């Protein structure tokens, strides 16, 4: 398929700007653009067809089953899109005076209240733009908290099952990293933990349930170990969809929690964003929250910028407001029934697990929470079929592959998260596909090795992409395609 730049013809155009009859302005010569940018020159009909063709070559939740582990690919309710585009939200300038933004501020205040109740922690900032920025914010909060107490702590502990964002955030926040192992049941290894927590430890970053889809059965002891050492606990909310209304991070002992509004609370993933990563904290950490926060005085709401102990601002304005509208609408649609959302997410996952564990390896044989991790190592050992081949073959069944090769503690990992919005028929369809693929691995492995079939492209030469990077269209100098070997 051609690039929009390749469809460009000199002299074509779509948008026009009104002619107000103003004199043509003169900009200083040295600041004026010398060569016009080579943006595409295309009339509107072909722009629409181009977007449509690109959409046709993209698979979303709307297309089919998308059990991508740890990403919570649930249905995105359309009413949220409708209310997200109300002019009173869409066309509201963020510098509008508080008095002219009362509806927006009330929505944010109410969202904070609901998030606080769900986390079991009293104070919330909505500012962070995504989960990973929530993590970084949480670590900055720890830094500010200890600095205020005159304590020098420089180490953060993460689990060996942690998302890659955890260690990356630790580095960005200027901390050093210590890793703790997972025990045979999939819990944090308490002996390893006790040996590593000391007066230099600032805190723990933990996903619970973990990326193995298992709730840490020793979480109360874990919290005790850290709190006894004067350290803090950070909850990575990537897997919160398992426990809303069932178990609260604050009650588990966590001091700082981030939410992924684009996972748990249905903000559409948008092909990779936008998201939202609010953070909730215990009252001892509240003074350090990013400014501004939404404050309430009687019936009036305002943005409070006067926060002398704040870590500062982590992004522009008060956060990704359009995401708040969607997540707020989602939470209001469920009300206290949010608990049922998590119950069904866990039921769906356990059902898939029960129906697949006899054909794929199950590294930790327990009931799972909202997701679970299987291993294709039995197929690899017996038939030379890797997790990647299983993933690619699933595409032939019109199913998006699960997360693969993660968490790192499981070889040939297939991390499967169905979410609560899938009907039983879709789950059964996945079971049939996965079982058939296991059979195909034995009977016709080439079918898997050559998968996918019938997609717009076959498997890609990813080494070439990295070794000879072509990261933009280069017009006349664009390299000609050389056939892969």
């Amino acid at each position, binding site marked *: *398929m051609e690039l*929009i730049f390749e469809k460009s013809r000199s002299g074509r155009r*779509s*948008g026009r*700007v009104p002619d*107000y009859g103003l004199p043509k302005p003169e*900009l200083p010569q*040295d600041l004026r*653009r010398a060569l016009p*940018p*080579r*943006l595409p020159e295309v009339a509107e009909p072909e*722009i*629409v067809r181009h977007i449509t063709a690109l959409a*046709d070559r*993209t698979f*979303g*939740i709307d297309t089919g089953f998308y059990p991508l582990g740890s990403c919570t690919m649930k249905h995105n309710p359309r009413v949220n*899109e409708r209310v997200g585009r109300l002019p*009173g939200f869409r*066309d*509201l300038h*963020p510098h*509008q005076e508080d008095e*002219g933004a009362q*509806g927006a501020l009330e929505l944010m205040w109410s969202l904070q209240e609901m998030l606080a109740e*769900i986390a079991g922690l009293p104070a919330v900032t909505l500012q962070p733009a*995504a989960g*990973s*920025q929530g993590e970084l914010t949480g670590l900055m909060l720890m830094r500010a908290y200890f600095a205020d107490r005159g304590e020098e702590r420089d180490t953060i502990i993460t689990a060996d099952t942690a998302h*890659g*964002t955890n*260690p990356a955030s630790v580095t960005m926040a200027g901390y050093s990293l210590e890793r703790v192992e997972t025990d045979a049941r999939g819990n944090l290894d308490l002996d390893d933990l006790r040996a590593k927590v000391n007066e230099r430890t600032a805190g723990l970053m933990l996903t619970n349930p973990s990326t193995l889809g298992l709730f840490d059965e020793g979480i109360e002891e874990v919290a005790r170990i850290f709190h006894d050492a004067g350290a803090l606990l950070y909850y990575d909310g990537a897997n919160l969809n398992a426990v809303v209304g069932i178990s*609260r991070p604050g009650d588990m002992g966590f001091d700082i929690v981030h939410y992924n509004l684009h996972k748990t609370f249905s903000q*559409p993933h*948008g*092909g*990779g964003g936008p998201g939202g990563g609010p953070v909730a904290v215990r009252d001892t950490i509240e003074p350090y929250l990013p400014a501004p926060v939404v404050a309430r005085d009687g019936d009036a709401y305002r943005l409070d910028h006067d926060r002398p102990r704040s870590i500062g601002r982590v992004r*522009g*304005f008060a*956060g*990704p407001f359009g995401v708040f509208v969607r997540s707020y*609408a989602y939470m209001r*649609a*469920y*009300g206290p029934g949010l608990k049922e959302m998590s119950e069904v997410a*866990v*039921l769906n996952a356990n059902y898939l697990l029960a129906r697949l564990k006899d054909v794929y390896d199950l590294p930790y044989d327990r*009931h799972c929470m909202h997701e679970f991790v299987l291993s294709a190592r039995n197929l690899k050992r017996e038939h030379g079929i890797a997790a990647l081949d299983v993933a*690619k073959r699933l595409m032939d069944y019109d199913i998006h*592959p699960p997360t693969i090769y993660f968490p790192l503690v499981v070889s040939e990992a297939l991390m499967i998260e169905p979410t609560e919005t899938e009907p*039983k028929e879709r789950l059964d369809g996945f079971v049939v596909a996965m079982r058939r693929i296991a059979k195909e691995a034995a009977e016709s492995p080439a079918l898997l090795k050559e998968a996918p079939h019938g997609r717009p492209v*076959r498997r890609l030469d990813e080494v*070439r*992409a*990295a070794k000879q*990077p072509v*990261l*933009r269209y280069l017009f006349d100098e664009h390299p000609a395609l050389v056939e*892969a070997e």
Partner: protein
Amino acid sequence: MSYLSLTDADREEMLAAIGVSSVEELFEQIPPGVRFGRELDVPRALPEIELVAHLSELANRNVHTGVELSFLGAGIYDHYVPAVVDVLLSRGEFLTAYTPYQPEMSQGVLQAIFEYQTAICELTGMDVSNASGYDGCTVAADACFVAKHTSGRAKVVVAETLNPQVRHVVKTYAGGFGLEVVEIAHRGGTIDPDELASASADAAAVIFQQPNFFGCLEPAPDLAAAAADAGAHPIAHVDLMSLGVLEAPGAYGCAMAIGEGQSAGCPPLYGGPHYGFFAARQEFVRRMPGRIVGETVDLDGQRAFVLTLQTREQHIRREKATSNITTNQTLLALAGLVTLTWLGPQGLREVGETCVGLTEYAKERLGLPLAFERPTFKEVAVRLPRPARDVIRDARGLGVHPGYAVGRDYPEMDDVLLIALTEKRTPADVDRLAAVLGEVC
């Protein structure tokens, strides 16, 4: 509740397959001490009709640009978002896909990001662009991280004319990066290149904004040269909508070009979500933060697109990654691509010329003293006879939001009003602003 599909019969069958008698049994792995023993204390569930009514009621309590003639800018601008953007936003495939980890199922979104990267490179004159950052603030912090690691220096210089929120975010991140942030004062609305040269001596980078926060045009080529001569990476924070008429940062020697993409393709939306763009010269590519899409071929030799250079990223490199970013702002970046395509080079130039023309018209028509005698793009800072906050309050009473009170960020300028003019404002709008300001000043 209509988002769940399981029937009672489904549940029974599924529980039987699992081998448990109730859903509660599945939660027995949660220690009793941390189970939540009551119902969530959140407002009752609303059916869709009531939900829309409730959200509409909240929305109607906001004074938006459709009900008040607004000249607010200061980082977020009311440019026209073309209707074709709705084609993109309404396609469920784009809306509901995740990050394109599986390229065979994601060629559409991957190609669109590749096209977006190309458009950003063309506009900024840079070699490479990532797939987007969170906003115009966080991309500045990202740029500091790149600059530190490529220069080995531990200081960044930021212009006082750089958007205050961008400076705040850079300072918030700087502690963790081990970076010192030094601000350089403006002289009459812009930065002096000689002062910048001495401040840059041991700096990793210099960040300036063009056009700057006051709407003034910086002597950008001189600033970039001053920074580069001192061995600091020059970084321009630019507005995409200006780059049809203003020179590309790559053409005057910048190492990186970053900015807030909102003006191209996104409504104000009370501050977000929008997208930040991050472009750089080739030499920085392996230190760049965020997703990058590259072109390659498939087994049949067909052109194909894929996330590439992933060894920079957190899911591969973990604590050694160039950034922790995962979710970015893809959908909004693609709205930017569609908007820029709809405008094309000619439309973008017309937008720029209209902005400059309207701003010149406003200067003349308002007859207020200018805070700075400098050329401008789409914003002008004027001095008022009384505090800007009071003038804004009174003008709003007459249905016009006249602009931003600069004293919010620069306390010594509480009589300065920053007025933004996009191509959506008309000379008649400016006439009305002049009449209202005449009345309340």
